[in-house]
């Protein structure tokens, strides 16, 4: 039986609550992984082991599921994420140039490793593309300037810290 990774952490209480809500049923694996992703920001290895034991699923299968789905991350996230929507509507409205700009702009900030640039397949606000997602906030009708502005804001933030 896997031990709980650390004790007294409120995040583990949330995880345990999710596990008990699903009464340890193996089919709840993805729901529980969602909870883990939410509370930890990614799914640490010891949490995977803990979930495998709690749901009585072979470790390899838990890893197989966790590594299959793009919304689950097995490595710690950067402190900021800049997501450029590459849905078709955004794409025909110039999202590729935005992505390039985002990579270029964050390349400058690479030294601090604060920002991760991602391309999303579609964020579902196609009527107002191109879209930019700055951490959890969505910017509609984005352009290169918007990208530069957001990256600059990140950098300012990191200097404040």
């Amino acid at each position, binding site marked *: 039986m896997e031990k709980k990774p650390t004790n007294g952490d409120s995040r583990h209480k949330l995880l345990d609550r999710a596990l008990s809500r699903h009464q340890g049923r193996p089919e709840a694996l993805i729901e529980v992984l969602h909870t883990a992703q939410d509370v930890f920001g990614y799914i640490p290895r010891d949490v995977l082991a803990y979930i495998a034991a709690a749901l009585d699923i072979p470790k*390899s299968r838990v890893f197989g599921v966790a590594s299959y789905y793009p919304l689950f991350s097995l490595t710690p996230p950067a402190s900021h994420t800049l997501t450029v929507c590459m849905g078709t509507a955004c794409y025909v409205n110039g999202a590729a140039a935005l992505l390039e700009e985002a990579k270029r702009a964050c390349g400058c900030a690479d030294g601090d490793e604060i920002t991760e640039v991602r391309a999303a397949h579609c964020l579902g606000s196609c009527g107002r593309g191109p879209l930019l997602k700055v951490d959890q906030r969505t910017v509609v009708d984005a352009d290169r300037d918007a990208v530069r502005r957001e990256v600059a804001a990140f950098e300012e933030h990191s200097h404040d810290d």
Partner: protein
Amino acid sequence: MHEIRTLSIDGQMISASADATILEAAREHGISIPTLCHLDGLSDVGACRLCLVEIEGQNRLQPACVTRVEEHMVVRTTSARLKKYRRMLLELLFSEGNHVCAVCVANRNCELQNLAADAGMDHVRFDYLHPACTTDATHDRFVLDHNRCILCARCVRVCDEIEAASTLAVAGRGSQSWIVSDLQDSWGDARSCTSCGKCLLVCPTGSLFEKGHTSTDPERKEDFLRYIVNANRRKG
């Protein structure tokens, strides 16, 4: 008493039990259909697509390994189109991994290599992708070489369905899939592994092999699975 179906495969009238697959019916009557992900004794997944056959009246090609026989079914297992597709599928597999037969432990004893020869694959037209893969030699006795893996998942199924250790699984997805042991542990550290070696016996290529051997056992996958499955059935 089994219900019996009568059907035609490559013009030959044959009868088969109603729950038989086209593949089983064909092989029972000496008609060979190429397979790679299928192995008698393991569940079928229909993934390699080599056993696709034409069925009269159906637009889509069907995998013989999972398609049940039906009364009056007319099946063709070879045609110019099927031959072409099989060769292309093999070319795709060769292009995807690092299959350097000359330096492979399974050379001359490899299902992939044999199937390519059967299909007349004298060269591969697609880009060789040359993936940068690793080899896991941390286990005391066994080696897993990702370079030669074709993701047929026979090792995963035998580990799960026969040995019930479930040490191995497919991780990732798409062209970024790989075989993993436990939580991406080195194989040597995967505590669930019983070192039974069944995965080596079912591997169609040289991806899984025993340390210290320069060639794989030519009989490796032939009989042991049927023996175990039958033994389990007798007990059950």
